[in-house]
């Protein structure tokens, strides 16, 4: 479903990704780990199509289509979802309203029928309940004054409702206490399905205990330097990036 080929990306004229290759088959969970500044968030922004992340070489194939020239909203409508490392606040716009606008916009781009108010409410309430998100929080302005954990739960809620084919989770675990981590991980696990893939970016083994990946990639210096199964995360935890990367080289 996702195949990144020799991807080179410039940010503000500086090359950050330098020939990234990555293949994620349908239904699989792939983790990306790597030191600070390696280019993990850059990868996720580039996949989502953020302006200023200039692809100078290579391509991003999503279900056989090169999406590098597509606008972010087009990619979203095709099923690419990014859970932000730092979710943004939108004053005055309730989570409810934001979600409805997003779902309807995507439906419109795909040429599908919009949900009616009752269908929408039912879907939101059900998803919110599973993530322990109160009705009150759904009515509050999006992410405004939310705690770190609440923001991440809200990202998970959005993912659950937008039903992407590829979900990129950028440090979903940062700032979460252990209970919230479990809740978010459970939310993600419930969404696992044969036609949905995940790209999980994290620094810690801990998240991968809950969301068990099929493959782990190590990103360093703008490319994938090592891929392996979940034992790789344990090696990293014990020996650190430098040693593991050096050994692989």
């Amino acid at each position, binding site marked *: 479903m996702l195949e990144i080929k020799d991807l080179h990306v410039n940010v503000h004229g500086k090359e950050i990704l330098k020939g990234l290759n990555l293949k994620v088959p349908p239904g699989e969970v792939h983790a990306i780990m790597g030191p600070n500044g390696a280019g993990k968030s850059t990868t996720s922004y580039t996949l989502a*199509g953020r302006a200023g992340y200039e692809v100078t070489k290579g391509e991003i194939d999503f279900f056989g289509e090169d999406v590098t020239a597509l606008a972010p909203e087009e990619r*979203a409508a095709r099923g690419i979802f990014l859970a932000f490392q730092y979710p943004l606040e939108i004053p005055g716009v309730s989570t409810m*309203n934001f979600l409805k606008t997003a779902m309807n916009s995507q439906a419109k781009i795909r040429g599908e029928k919009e949900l009616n108010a009752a269908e929408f409410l039912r879907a939101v309430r059900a998803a919110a309940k599973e993530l322990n998100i109160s009705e009150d929080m759904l009515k509050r302005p999006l992410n405004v004054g939310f705690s770190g954990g609440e923001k991440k739960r809200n990202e998970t809620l959005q993912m659950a409702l937008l039903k992407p084919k590829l979900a990129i989770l950028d440090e979903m675990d940062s700032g979460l206490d252990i209970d919230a981590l479990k809740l978010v991980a459970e939310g993600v696990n419930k969404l696992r399905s044969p036609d949905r893939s995940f790209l999980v970016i994290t620094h810690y083994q801990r998240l991968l205990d809950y969301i068990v990946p099929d493959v782990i990639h190590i990103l360093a210096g703008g490319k994938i330097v090592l891929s392996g199964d979940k034992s790789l995360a344990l090696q990293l935890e014990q020996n650190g990036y430098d040693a593991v990367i050096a050994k692989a080289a």
Partner: protein
Amino acid sequence: MSEEAAALQELTEQKYKYGFVSDIESEFAPKGLNEDVIRFISAKKNEPEWMLDYRLSAYRRWVNMEEPSWAKLHYPKIDFQDAYYYAAPKAKEGPHTLEDVDPELLRTYEKLGIPLHEQEVLAGVEQRRVAVDAVFDSVSVVTTFKDELAKVGVIFCPISEAVHSHPELVKKYLGSVVPDTDNFYATLNAAVFSEGSFVYIPPGVRCPMELSTYFRINAAKSGQFERTLIIADAGSYVSYLEGCTAPQRDENQLHAAVVELIAMDDAEIKYSTVQNWFPGDENGKGGIYNFVTKRADCRGKNSKVSWTQVETGSAITWKYPSCILRGENSVGEFYSIAIANNYQQADTGTKMIHLGKNTSSRIISKGISAGKAQNTYRGLVSINARADGARNFTQCDSLLIGDQCGAHTVPYIQSKNPKAILEHEATTSKISDDQLFYCLSRGIPTEEAVSLIVNGFCREVLQQLPMEFAVEAQKLVGLSLEGSVG
């Protein structure tokens, strides 16, 4: 036309979808302004002597007045002799019913989405009825639900009609809040005012439906001089809405209105405006010059007036809806959204004059600037020495889109009572790239994202609008900012 050209035209037209001109045969006063023109207007409306005298005395005063220049507005000098002060569709004399109205006029209102048939309703959320007074250039075309309102004693009619049918009320209240000496534009209005609505709610009556007036400027080179007078007698309530649109033209046109509200003991008036005059094109050509004096007199104790305005149109907006809080415990509120895009200039705000004891006022102003526009909030809170227990809360928020526009906040506070409680908060923010990208990544295209963020920014004010109009206003907020990003 190629498909592409058609799509393009549709897109540009969408920017101001009320910019069409109706092909109506009109009758004009001679061009320019002098005593004869005033006599002409007065005669057209078949006015009694006292009304003509009122106009002439205002005119004689106006001739010696100077245009105010303190606002942060820049525009070429207006040639007041180069305009028509009266323009009206040719029609039968006297008040008309819907059957008498020119079908072309009916089509105009249909295109504007304004219901003139009593069984119709606005395409709102709730199926509630709204009474409409439709003012076209200098005359009222039709007023709906008049008879039904009369059954509960509510008078809702064009002001030119009220001069004949209720002269005692007009004489008593006209100019009692905004005297004809008030300011350059108010004095001009007193001399040449053409049409507007008259509302009287008798004691103890809660007006059974929303009242509204739609102002449409159609004729070229003509000014519109709206005059509205609303009286809420003791213990009554009314919610009133004013809407405005005009064709897209290259030259500037003048709209100089005076609106007077009077609230007696325990009465409440909720006055909402959705101002959507043609704003000029993206190069700043054309557009309405909107110079408006709106003032409410909270005359009675426990009276309340609430102004809500959504100002999206006009090349120039000069407007400060105010409240004189005379009655004890009276309350004044001002909720405002002012959007200025491209080359628009808005200088708007309010005045809250606290005279009575325990009076309170609340000001929530949301200014949005985009393109090369300038947006100024100008507000005065004045507390009289005798106004013990007076309090005001003011919040002014500005949102900037792009880096070529400006937002300015000019609050004046004059307190002669040391015990008054005054709070003022002000913020300026920008729509960040991060916020926009967050929306885009969820599948929300740029224009909708801007609309969503701006609507969120304005929420506190939009919530004040009657439900029937809130949805329309939200759409308008989005439309006004089309093309402002990216």
